[in-house]
């Protein structure tokens, strides 16, 4: 099921990250309405048809882009120099273009964001982008640090409370309290990093120039097709001229 050619999840994560970038640049630099609108719709259709989204991710993909376009259109209408763009309609049009541009870049990024696993991306970067595996494994370690941080933060918070560290109430005091957690949290994390590196070296990490992987992330013909398709999206601005 996961390997179905119709599921975006079965494609190579590095391809999904890199191939949309030219189209994102085209969308970001466009000044018309057609280009970002067409790219947003194409990316959304790809995600909805082949992304196999569920639950909250599906909800946000459906509701996010229209909501953002609407809010940006209105807010830019307020901010923009109305004399220069020709009254309210011009201001709203500029706002709409900005909203579509932001949502086009966002949805193109979501193609990779919602359909790939971080660990698979790192594995593919090591295998296909020739990233040194020592750096890749630092990436795995960083991912494993995150749940540990949550635990550490809880301990530091409780330690401050048990010692009666009080900054008072309100948003200013909360900011102050949280900034007090930063240094112990980071210091603890770096000490943990020291211990992890000792443990890794004790197990012979980095002894050989290359390393085999148990789980393989394939790079197949379908990935070339996807990359070609995403690169072809750069031609979207020229479509209205071709179609007349």
């Amino acid at each position, binding site marked *: 099921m996961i390997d179905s050619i119709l599921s975006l999840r079965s494609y190579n994560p590095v391809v999904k990250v890199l191939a949309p970038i030219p189209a994102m640049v085209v969308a970001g630099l466009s000044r018309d309405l057609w280009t970002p609108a067409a790219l947003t719709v194409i990316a959304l259709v790809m995600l909805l048809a082949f992304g196999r989204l569920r639950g909250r991710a599906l909800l946000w993909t459906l509701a996010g882009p229209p909501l953002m376009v609407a809010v*940006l259109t209105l807010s830019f209408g307020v901010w923009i120099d109305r004399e220069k763009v020709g009254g309210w309609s011009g201001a709203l049009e500029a706002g709409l273009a900005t909203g579509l541009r932001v949502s086009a870049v966002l949805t193109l990024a979501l193609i990779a*964001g919602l359909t790939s696993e971080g660990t698979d991306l790192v594995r593919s970067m090591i295998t296909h982008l020739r990233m040194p595996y020592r750096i890749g494994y*630092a*990436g795995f370690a960083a*991912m494993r640090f995150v749940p540990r941080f949550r635990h550490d933060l809880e301990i530091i918070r409780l330690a401050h409370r048990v010692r009666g560290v009080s900054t008072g109430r309100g948003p200013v005091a909360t900011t102050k309290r949280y900034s007090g957690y*930063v240094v112990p949290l*980071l210091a603890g994390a770096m000490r943990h990093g*020291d211990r992890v590196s000792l443990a*890794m070296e004790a197990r012979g990490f*980095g002894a050989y120039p290359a390393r085999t992987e148990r789980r393989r992330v394939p790079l197949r013909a379908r990935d070339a097709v996807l990359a070609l398709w995403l690169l072809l999206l750069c031609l979207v601005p020229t479509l209205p001229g071709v179609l007349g």
Partner: protein
Amino acid sequence: MKNLTTRFLMACAAIGAATGVLLIPAFFVSFAISATVPLAYAAMAGVWLLGPVIALAVLRRPGAAVLTMLLAGIINIASPAGPSAIVTNLMVGVAMELGFLVTLYRIWRPWLFHVTALVFQTFYAISAYAYFHIDDVALAGKAGFVILLALSTVGFVQAGLIIAKRLTAAGVARGIRRPQPS
């Protein structure tokens, strides 16, 4: 590769993981406020500088900023920016690294952190100009955008330097830092 000891890599992973956790809400908030008040976006653009500044100031080794931001980007896959966050983060990391590269990693004074960050934000402001249609925004908005961007840059770099100083005082980077030629 010889300089990338496992301990240095794991220190970068620790700072990178913390930066990544900090940047996930930052990406969410930045998308939300870039949609409502583009000017507020300029005010928070400095958040992205915290990670590389802390990494460089604490570890004082070539590649610290790039590595930290690469690892932070890998964490950021869960954010709405998706893996393209890796590109954003790497861009910031490389930019912060450049200032130290051109001084051959001999100068670690606070002013170099500020200057590097401000030069980077100048380039960022130019690209944001097109992206956010700033061209058409009223003059007060333009001035506000530039001033807020500069203020947030200096503010967050300073915050990063203070955190780095306290971390160094806690002794966590002992043995990672290279002996400094004085």
